[in-house]
């Protein structure tokens, strides 16, 4: 068991180059025990490269990475004990039943026979896969394989789990089950690093988000921190009682904004909504709302449109 104090995963100016091409550029971050890090970025952003360096499958060109104090390049044996890795490919073997498959990996991790039998039952129970134990691995559906993949990473009871696209190709039901499984693992005290293209899924489970593009870390922190850092303008919506007043309200709102913000004002008569973007303070916005109410324009609601991970991701990737 690793120490509860201090960061568990640390990377320092991690760089990976292939000739002229830089796959990873000075990546530095820290992750504490029990946290779930969502690694997001477009294809070729450097997520898998980072993961492969962390699990010791790839050597960085410069910089360092460590997990629970073990250097990812020099302490390969400790890393293997500390980390459970699920790559984006399942790595199935034909003609093997699920129990035999897990038994092999348990033996490969040096777990004794009796202990292995107990662990296999445990991980199958944890991942909700007990009913699959006698099925042949190649006959499993994609969602089932993903769950067996997670079970495999749990066999040697690692403290850090690194999962590359665990929700990829899953149907909505399987995705919900996977999300619940990851949260359950976090509750068990595991530190998780998860990559995914399905951003709403990540936003529901991750404490920390890292956004990468072109090998660089563009944003890192809690979702709220990232939102605050990236949003210079917030989006607001004025819901009206009648759509016919939309043009009038839009005109009143425009008067309260500066010249650059005025262009963002849009009146949607059919929806009875006026939307605009502004960087003004909450006090200024309170004045604006007061003016609209006093003018008796039929304002039903005045609300900020919440920014989600997808918006944050798009903003960061566009800027980069």
């Amino acid at each position, binding site marked *: 068991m690793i120490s509860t104090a201090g960061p568990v995963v640390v990377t320092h100016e991690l760089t990976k180059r292939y000739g002229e091409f830089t796959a990873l550029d000075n990546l530095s971050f820290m992750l504490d025990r029990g946290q779930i890090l969502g690694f997001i970025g477009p294809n070729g952003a450097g997520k898998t490269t980072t993961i*492969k360096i962390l*699990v*010791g*499958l*790839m*050597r960085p060109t410069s910089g360092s990475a460590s997990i629970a104090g073990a250097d990812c*390049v020099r302490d*390969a*044996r400790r890393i*293997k*004990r500390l*980390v459970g*890795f699920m*790559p984006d*490919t*399942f*790595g*199935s*073997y*034909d*003609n*093997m*039943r699920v*129990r*035999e498959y897990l*038994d*092999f*990996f*348990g*033996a*490969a*991790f*040096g777990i*004794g*026979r009796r202990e*292995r*039998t107990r662990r296999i039952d445990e991980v199958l129970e944890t991942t909700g896969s007990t009913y*699959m*134990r*006698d*099925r*042949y691995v190649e*006959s499993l559906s994609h969602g089932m394989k993903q769950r067996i993949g997670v079970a*495999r990473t749990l066999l040697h009871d690692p403290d850090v789990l690194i999962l590359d696209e665990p929700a990829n190709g899953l149907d909505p039901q399987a995705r919900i089950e996977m999300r619940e499984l990851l949260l359950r693992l976090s509750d068990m005290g595991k530190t998780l690093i998860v990559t995914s293209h399905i951003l709403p899924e990540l936003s529901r489970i991750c404490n920390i988000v890292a956004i990468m593009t072109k090998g660089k870390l563009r944003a890192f922190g809690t979702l709220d921190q990232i939102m605050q850092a990236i949003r210079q303008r917030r989006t607001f919506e004025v819901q009206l009682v009648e759509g016919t007043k939309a043009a009038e309200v839009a005109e009143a709102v425009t008067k309260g904004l500066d010249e650059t913000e005025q262009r963002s004002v849009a009146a949607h008569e059919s929806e009875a909504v006026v939307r605009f973007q502004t960087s003004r303070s909450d006090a200024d916005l309170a004045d604006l709302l007061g003016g609209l109410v006093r003018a008796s324009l039929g304002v039903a609601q005045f609300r900020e449109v919440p920014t989600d991970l997808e918006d944050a991701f798009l903003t960061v990737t566009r800027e980069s």
Partner: protein
Amino acid sequence: MIAIFQREFFGILRLRRAVVAMVAMAVCSGLLVLARWPSEALVDLSGSQARQVFRIFTYGMLAGVLLLAPAWPATSFVQERRRGTLALLFNTPLSKLAIYAGKLSGVLAFVGLVLITSLPAAAACYAMGGIDLTQDLGSVALVLSVATLQYVAVGLLVSTFANSTDSAVRTTYAVVFSLCFLALGPHYFLQGQEGWTPLLAAWLRRVSPLPVLMHLVGQGSVGSQGLMESSSGMPEYLLASLVVTAGVMIATLVQLHSGIFDRSRSQGLITDEQSLGVRAARRVFFLVDPQRRSAGIPFWLNPVMVKEFRTRRFGRLHWILRLVAACAVVSLLTTLAATTGTVDWGVETIGGLLVIFQVLLMVLLTPSLTAGLISGERESGGWDLLRMTRLSGWQIAVGKLMSVAWTLLLVLLATLPGYIVMIAIKNVMWLQVSLVIVCLLLSTLVTLAVSAAVGSLFSKTTTSTVTAYVVLLAMFFGPLLIWLGRDAPFGYEVVQAALSITPAPAALSVIGMPGFEQYELIPLAWWVAAGVSGLSFAFLFARIWRLMRPS
């Protein structure tokens, strides 16, 4: 159909291995002719030198067809099914027949193109004189074309049944080599006898192109036990071969129409959960029940070795028991047939036959088990998972090699009862038999080491399996081509050196097989085998060490 043909033909042409195959065929056929091209300014009025060149050229071309023709069709349907493109093809207005014809013609066109690269060598052969354009070159071309059609059709049929590309390649090669070589076996024992069985054996022999080609190059007497045939057997070969090909084609079309997507998923049936009666019945029937819940891997066994056995379709204990039993039965039947036959062959010939049977078994079985040991893991994504475990490269390599070594050893041991019968007939032969067994063990070691080393070079199982087969067949059967040309065109020294490349001819020499008894191959063949095996293992371990390191 044209669209399928174009996609198949140009798809193959775009592959790097297709270019390698064409260049290899052109270079090898050219070198074969060049090796025997007259260097002295003398006119060969008898044309014997031209016949020698033609003989080598013909065998070289047959080897080319055997090695190249099955590789492409074997992966054709199975690859499309796994990628999901076969379902898309079936959803087009194209009929199954059109799809099949497109694929067949595409592969045939490519193999034809490869064979055409040998035309300059054939022209050089003809230019030497003494070779008839239609009687010799034309006949050889006809036989090889029919053989190519047959092997491509077989490859496509296997491809519709197979679940993976590597198993398709393995099965296709096994069937093709059986059609070419094993089909000759029954006739060898039964020739000269009367009745239905010898007649069937004679027709089975006609499926192979080898007897016709040997007759065409003037070596029809090899293996005939002095019973010479008056004709080349060309019409019979064409008839038998085309009937088999038609049957194979029909079977493929039936499979395309009904069964190719009709595969249910395993429901995880386990004997442990069946009634007591079912459990007892299965225990009696199977001895080792394949559906019994297996125990965990004990600490004294290498987990990789156990995994390898479990992941092979025929690696499970019940299949190994069947294989061993079949080998023992064939070995004893061979000896029995030889000792009770009408022709008195002598113990030496029986021993020679056993050696050939064992070497054939080793050469056919080993690459299929060994070539994909590393490439299979890399292709499936299992290699990274193995690297993430606490297993060292050494443990992985030893586990994988031992899984093949045990299988081969069991198969080899199962073929030994024939030798016991031989010693019982002529007990002074025990020393010869001991030397033969050493030769066979070394042959097994060489096949294992070479195919594992060659296979580790590639990341695709299909490529590694095909390459391992090509290398091993070249090593084991290449010297036999030179042996067929003993005295003319090759001298004693050349043949002896060629036969020393592997220990298999040394076994034939020790047992006193006619045609081999005059060569002194031991201990040189043993040293060569040990050296080749050592180097191959060293290369394999270095390769695994490199693949285990962070990239």
